[in-house]
């Protein structure tokens, strides 16, 4: 028997309709230069990929970029083990792996800034596209390292916004990104978390301050928790990892087996 996916059909039709009214422009989302397709031009992709060859913490995914400060790298000669930053090594990390599409710098920084604060929601597409790659690599990483099957990954969990902030901004950037990736990869979208308290902006705070700020802020929402399975936490930005750690703690306490973190951009290790 043929199954007709009405929702999919309607969704496609709606997208076609929107394409008619707001035709997608074949210019680079990042630099506004001409592109061969809708998305990010090869120049900007190359700039992003420049970072991917840089050494990266195996756990938190941040880049070892501070030039010359080799001590941070903690490399052991002839050791095949991946490099792990001092922070991840010395403190207990709650998520398994965190990965990002690039460094929070240059065009990517501007794009995220425009997306979040300039409310240019059309940037969901290119940023979500980048994030899709990150989620895919996390799935394969989970498979190779933890023998996780794709079916064991219950879904994508966006980092929530407090109601007040959500109202002001009009959208939750993590949710938009998670929905986009979920549609792209056919992985369920799972809004498991909610933010109970408004916290002051995290910018400019130290790791300890951030952690204390966040204690008890996140809660699990009423929906059914996929106990014993893994999820991928989605956020736009990975700075010190306090937010995602706190979210992971809440999720693990709720009975999940493991948490992966996918963000669009990440920072360097200071």
């Amino acid at each position: 028997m043929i199954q007709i996916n009405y929702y999919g059909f309607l969704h496609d039709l709606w997208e076609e309709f929107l394409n008619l009214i707001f035709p997608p422009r074949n210019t680079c989302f990042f630099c506004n230069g001409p592109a061969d397709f809708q998305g990010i031009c090869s120049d900007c992709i190359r700039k992003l990929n420049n970072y991917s060859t840089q050494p990266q913490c195996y756990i938190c995914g941040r880049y070892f970029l501070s030039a010359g400060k080799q001590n941070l790298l903690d490399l052991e000669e002839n050791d095949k083990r991946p490099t792990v930053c001092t922070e991840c090594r010395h403190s207990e990390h709650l998520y398994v792996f965190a990965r990002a599409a690039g460094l929070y710098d240059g065009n990517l920084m501007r794009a995220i800034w425009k997306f979040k604060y300039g409310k240019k929601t059309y940037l969901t597409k290119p940023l979500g596209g980048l994030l899709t790659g990150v989620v895919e690599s996390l799935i394969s990483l989970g498979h190779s390292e933890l023998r996780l099957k794709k079916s064991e990954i219950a879904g994508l969990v966006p980092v929530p916004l407090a109601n007040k902030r959500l109202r002001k901004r009009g959208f939750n950037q993590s949710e938009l990104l998670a929905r986009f990736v979920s549609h792209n990869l056919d992985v369920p979208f799972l809004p498991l978390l909610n933010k109970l308290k408004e916290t002051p902006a995290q910018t400019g705070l130290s790791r300890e301050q951030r952690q204390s700020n966040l204690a008890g802020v996140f809660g699990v929402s009423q929906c059914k928790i996929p106990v014993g399975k893994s999820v991928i936490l989605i956020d736009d930005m990975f700075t010190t990892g306090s937010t995602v750690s706190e979210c992971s703690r809440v999720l693990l306490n709720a009975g999940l087996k493991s948490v992966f973190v996918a963000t669009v951009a990440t920072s360097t290790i200071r």
Partner: protein
Amino acid sequence: MVSRPLLLFTGIVISGIVLSGYLNISPGFLLLLLGIAFFAAVTGYLFSWRASGIVLSLLFFLTGIFYGTISNNRVNPDLFRYTGHWVTLEGVVCSEPDLRPDKVFYKLDLTRIKIGEEQSRLKARVLVQAPKPDKVYCFGDLLRIHGLLVRPDEPGNPGEFDYRTYLTRQGIGVILRASGSEDFVLLGVRGNPFMRQLLLLKKKIIMVQQQTLPADKAALVNGIVFGTQGQIPEKLWEAFSQTGIVHILSVSGMHVGLVLAGAIALTGFLNIPVIQGTLLISLLVILYSLFCGMGPAVTRSALMALMFLWSYRLGRKQDWPTTLSLAALIILLWKPAAIYDIGFQLSFSATWGILYLGPVIDELLKKHTRWPAWIQATIWVSLAAQLATLPLVALYYNLFSPVSMLANILAVPLTTAILALGVCSGILGLFSVFLAGLINACTSAVLDIFIAVVSLLNNLPGSFISIPSPPLIFIPAWFIVLFFSARIFNKKNASTTVRFLSENRNAAVLILILAVTAISLLFFKTPAEKQLVMHMIDVGQGESILIQFPSGKNMLVDTGGWEGEFATGEGAGSKVVLPYLQRLGVRRLDVLLLTHSHEDHAGGAAAVVNSIPAALVIVSSAAQKANSLSGASPEEDPYSRLLEGFRKKGILIQAVNEGDRLLLDPDVEIKVLSPSSTRTYQADDENNSSVVLMIRYGRQKFLLTGDIEVEAQESLLKSGADLRADVLKMPHHGSSNLLRSFVERVHPSFALISAGKNNRFFLPSSETVKLLKDLNIPVYRTDKDGAIILSANGSKMRVKTGRGTGPW
């Protein structure tokens, strides 16, 4: 690059609608074709045909033709057989009444018509005109109205506003003229109750302004807030249009933008969640455009504002060419005739200018000036809009306004303030007129400044230049020039455009030629072949003849004039003759000749001379004598006051009589045949004192006879002057006060009569018409043919009439 299917489809629909005006295909057949095309398009889509793009284009093209045809045939021809009769109509008021200072217009959806005892049901739309009543009916009222049913006038003069076509495009074929409130009976209430409540609310808000502000200012506030223009004093209106800020009085992008910004700020302030906020703002924008009557400019702005708003919510980037064309498509599918609407054309071209040319100008300004950002912004917006609307403004209003930019810089911030205050006082006034009054004290002060600024700018010398109507080809030429110049100045496209132009030399040369001709066409008249052109302008009851000599000089013989024009200064002179001269690009009158002092000949003189300087005014020598004899003091006599006004302006006034010659053009001989220098004319003998001119160019002669009656005709016959002429302007609008022998002596190839349609003197008289018929002289009449334009090159003559008819 972006693919913009909607832009293409809109273009196709527009061409379909325009084409439908020239085709005459039955709607049923078109519907059949449309069905087939639709079926083909759906099949093509489902089976992914390669040619489905073409099928789809065809579908849109047919849609355009179909909608155009339907809209062209909306006038119910059954009503035409009732025209010229007194009838009683029953129908529902289907739009907001259009209030003017002295009258009111309703649009009526007819349900029933009664003439005498005969009654029938008819579906049609009728315009009802009534003198200013005490009670104004509103949308949805079911009325019984008694009045005279007439067809709207066709324009008599070429280039004039075509009222009949204008109404026809709204589906209105006839006008009912009611004579007072006793002709109206309210039978009940019909119509959309939602719209009715909305318009009642608007009426209340307008009333609030009228209660708390002086009439003129209330009209201006309501004009700025709602775009209701009927009540604004004509002088002020003219000042607005001459300084290029008339767009302020028609609700458009600026107004909707301000309302949108206000609504966004309000939802932000009240901390309304964004989704609900977006819905609320959308609702507000829709309500506002309903309030403003859903004209093309309002609808366009509202649609674009909604798309702007929702592009955020839907996570899409706006593409303005698509948004603009979608707005056009929606308006045209709703009202195809909007394509001919001046407001539609101006609104869309201005928006195109602002969005396409604007950024380029902005970039140039930022590079070369260090002015504050808001000045730069006002400059680029108004300059872009002015550049893009220039050919249309030249075509429809014969205007070019150099102060427009300055006026906009000053007026736009003031308008913003007035709009904000007006909205506040209007809404508050619904609850407390007192509070509205408090706010409006402020509004009034801002309005004072506003009006002062506008009239100051309007009075600057050279604040506006009247330019002749450009030929139609000028309009596309101008837009092509704009398109390419903007691309060359644009950093991003410059290199590709320059490469394109250097690789296609011919295209470059073509564009250069276009640019030069476009600009020169606008400001200079093309040198025509050497000829004498005589325009007998259709001025209604009255007379005005413009003669353009082969050397390029202009002489105006009489200026027309409606009843009361001496006193008001408004009428044939300002509304017909002046625009006529401006359309032709006449900037200076070398001679203004007033044959005699009657209002229907000299009434418009003041208005004409105020705008087009006259070097010399020629009058009949007898007129002055007659005046002194009549005993009227110069202050009382409007004609003397007129001449006194000319004298004060420093215009030379010359009285002429029999035997004088006017040396205006070396190739043209102008002889004055009358008035006689010996005869004394009585005060009631004005007509006989008219200046009679014999104009000869090569072998062709024209006899202009003013209003002379039998006595003057006799003395002309007796004087022995050579009266033979090819063209005879019939004396006194074709009155029966005419000698057969005079006409026989002149023996013209054809005659001209200037008379108003259905005038109360019943001119031209049937006897004169019969006489001309007997003598086998064809006649051109302004009441039937409109303007009569004779072009003579000395041996051959061509006749053109405003309505393309005649001779009779």
